[in-house]
């Protein structure tokens, strides 16, 4: 399925609508960059009294990442959503500033904080996203890799279990070391599974939704339709059992239940999912000691024995203290003591931000996340093809679930898991993977919002189809005609029609009023 050239689409499909100038995005981007760069400067000023090392270079890199993406979007995805990119740059900039602040604190347990590496991965992530948007003209092209994506996802999930390359850090075996580089393959597996579920469910949603017995008013699916889904469910359980990674397991499972629900609109799936999850959680907490320990830390963090135990509740209690120290308006950049919390720059960056920006700042950050997720779900509603709907919906949901799991873990709403806060926490894999997610969302939203010659149900096509007859197959110029844009189904060949015609009516073809300029395509 090839896409239409931009220029052509603008000429034939949208005679009345201009390409958006993306001024709103540029304006928001400037605000977002101002937030990030001001934070860099304030951090340096508070800690050393002058601008931090390489301030201009760092600011330039961040601005280049954001503005570069903006230019790519202008050229290649002019109708893409205008709020997603600025929100991402906003979060990324603030996250980098916090990592820089912790690096500059010089505390012994903050040696892992490295703003440079974070910045490099941001630039790399933006570059990968730009390349993806530049070359991926239509998200439906990915659909042909449905089963490849499943395979890639499964391989990525089991990769850390291999003896030489896999590595266990802090009790979770989710790392892969290759030639001096380390990465968390689960972050990428998340994207692969979203692609797989979208492709698989869009092809099978009818059998999943309609076939099967009805039990107590709930439409249950048939066992044989569940094969590939059970494989992935088993993989997500395997992650929990063999890699000791509660968060990733929860993420995959949530993604899978949410996408089933999106595809089938059957509430029974949500119920089945919650029941399976509940059963799994209870079983896991009684069988596995590490899960039980997490639960214990969650329920009784202020227990003195637990607080002093290695791997106990010290971290989460310190995180809670940090949030309390921040209060309503925070201590200000560089004025708090967020370095007291272990892993304040990665797993606990949320509590660090809470300490220095306060609840007011945290709410702004959460709203920025909400904007990204909202735009993703909105894209899923707007896009016309089922694959795009499921892909955008699934990616947006998995991001929301990840944020909920991290923030919920730190604020002790749910047990703590080892997930990272997208775009903020230090970690190359997480940054790279989430930039790819953003690239996919932007691509789908471009296709969704691109003006189409086909009228949307119950509305009037661009160009006022209500008053002008739609002449199909006419040479350009008439509103409502033209090359099919993405979102139009591939037309059936003319052969199907000429072969047999309605028996009670003339069999000759009635030619359109205007000469057809594209032979071989039927109206």
């Amino acid at each position, binding site marked *: 399925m090839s896409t239409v050239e931009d220029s052509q689409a603008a000429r034939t499909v949208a005679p009345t609508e201009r390409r958006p100038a993306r001024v709103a995005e540029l304006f*928001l981007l400037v605000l977002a960059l101002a937030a990030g760069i001001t934070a860099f400067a304030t951090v340096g000023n508070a800690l050393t009294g002058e601008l931090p090392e390489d301030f201009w270079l760092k600011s330039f890199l961040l601005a280049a990442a954001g503005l570069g993406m903006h230019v790519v979007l202008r050229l290649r995805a002019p109708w893409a959503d205008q709020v997603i990119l600025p929100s991402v740059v906003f979060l990324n900039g603030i996250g980098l500033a916090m990592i820089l602040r912790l690096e500059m604190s010089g505390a012994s347990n903050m040696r892992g904080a490295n703003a440079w590496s974070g910045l490099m991965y941001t630039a790399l992530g933006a570059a990968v996203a730009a390349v993806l948007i530049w070359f991926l003209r239509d998200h439906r092209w990915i659909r042909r890799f449905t089963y490849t994506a499943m395979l890639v996802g499964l391989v990525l999930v089991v990769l850390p279990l291999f003896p030489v390359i896999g590595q266990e850090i802090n009790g979770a075996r989710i790392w892969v070391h290759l030639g001096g580089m380390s990465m968390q393959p689960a972050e990428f597996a998340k994207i692969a599974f979203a692609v797989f579920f979208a492709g698989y469910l869009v092809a099978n949603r009818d059998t999943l939704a309609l076939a099967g017995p009805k039990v107590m008013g709930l439409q249950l699916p048939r066992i044989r339709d569940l094969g590939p889904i059970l494989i992935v469910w088993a993989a997500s359980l395997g992650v929990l059992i063999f890699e000791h990674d509660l968060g990733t397991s929860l993420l995959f499972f949530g993604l899978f239940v949410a996408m089933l629900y999106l595809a089938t609109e059957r509430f029974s799936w949500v119920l089945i999912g919650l029941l399976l999850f509940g059963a799994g959680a209870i079983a896991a907490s009684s069988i596995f000691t590490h899960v039980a320990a997490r639960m214990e830390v969650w329920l009784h963090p202020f227990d003195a024995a637990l607080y002093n135990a290695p791997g106990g509740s010290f971290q989460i209690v310190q995180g809670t203290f940090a949030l309390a120290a921040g209060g309503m*308006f925070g201590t200000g950049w560089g*004025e708090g003591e967020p370095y007291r919390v272990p892993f304040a720059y990665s797993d606990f960056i949320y509590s660090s931000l809470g300490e220095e920006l306060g609840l007011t700042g945290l709410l702004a950050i959460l709203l920025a996340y909400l904007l990204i997720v909202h735009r993703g779900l909105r894209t899923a509603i707007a896009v*016309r093809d089922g694959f795009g709907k499921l892909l955008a919906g699934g990616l947006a949901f998995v991001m929301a679930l990840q944020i909920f799991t991290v923030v919920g873990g730190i604020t002790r709403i749910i047990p703590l898991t080892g997930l990272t806060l997208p775009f903020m926490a230090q970690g190359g894999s997480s940054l790279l993977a989430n930039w790819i997610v953003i690239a996919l969302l932007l691509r789908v939203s471009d296709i969704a919002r691109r003006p189409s010659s086909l009228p949307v149900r119950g509305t009037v*096509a661009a160009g006022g189809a*209500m008053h002008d007859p739609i*002449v199909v197959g006419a040479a350009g110029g008439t509103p409502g005609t033209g090359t099919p844009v993405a979102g139009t189904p591939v037309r*059936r060949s003319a052969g199907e029609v000429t072969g047999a015609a309605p028996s009670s009516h003339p069999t000759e073809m009635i030619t359109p009023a205007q000469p057809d300029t594209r032979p071989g395509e039927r*109206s």
Partner: protein
Amino acid sequence: MSELTFTLLRLGYLVLLWVFVLTAIAVLRRDLAPRGAPRGTRSDRRREAAPTPGAAASPAAPAKPKRGAPTRLVVTAGPLLGTTLPLSTASILIGRAPGCTLVLDDDYSSSRHARIFPQGDQWFVEDLGSTNGTFIGDTPVTGPIPLAPGVGVQIGRSVVELQG
């Protein structure tokens, strides 16, 4: 740095964060308008309200449903037999394309096959240059012609009619 400047800077930064978030939400408010609705530009609205050449009343004007006026469109033959569609003041596009109001699963109909639309108190049917044509009885529909309730319109293998 004095305490006051410091506090002002600290709060100023939070204000900057919220300015970003609120501006982004303001940008989104444009999106709340339903898709395809006129963007509020004056030329759009004028075109919407302008009377169609050859018709006395504007089709967009919400006319009170008269007694005996058709209220629904029913598929009386073909793969979608039994499907009904409530009539409003909007025109109904019939064809195989997913963007149509009535999407036919009929190999003999075109992507955008025919249009049934109200003008004044009367409903009209119009062929949109379909491959196999639109018929009332055995007469092909060439231009927009009035459509009375109960009269079957042949579109591909399907027949639709207006019912009161």
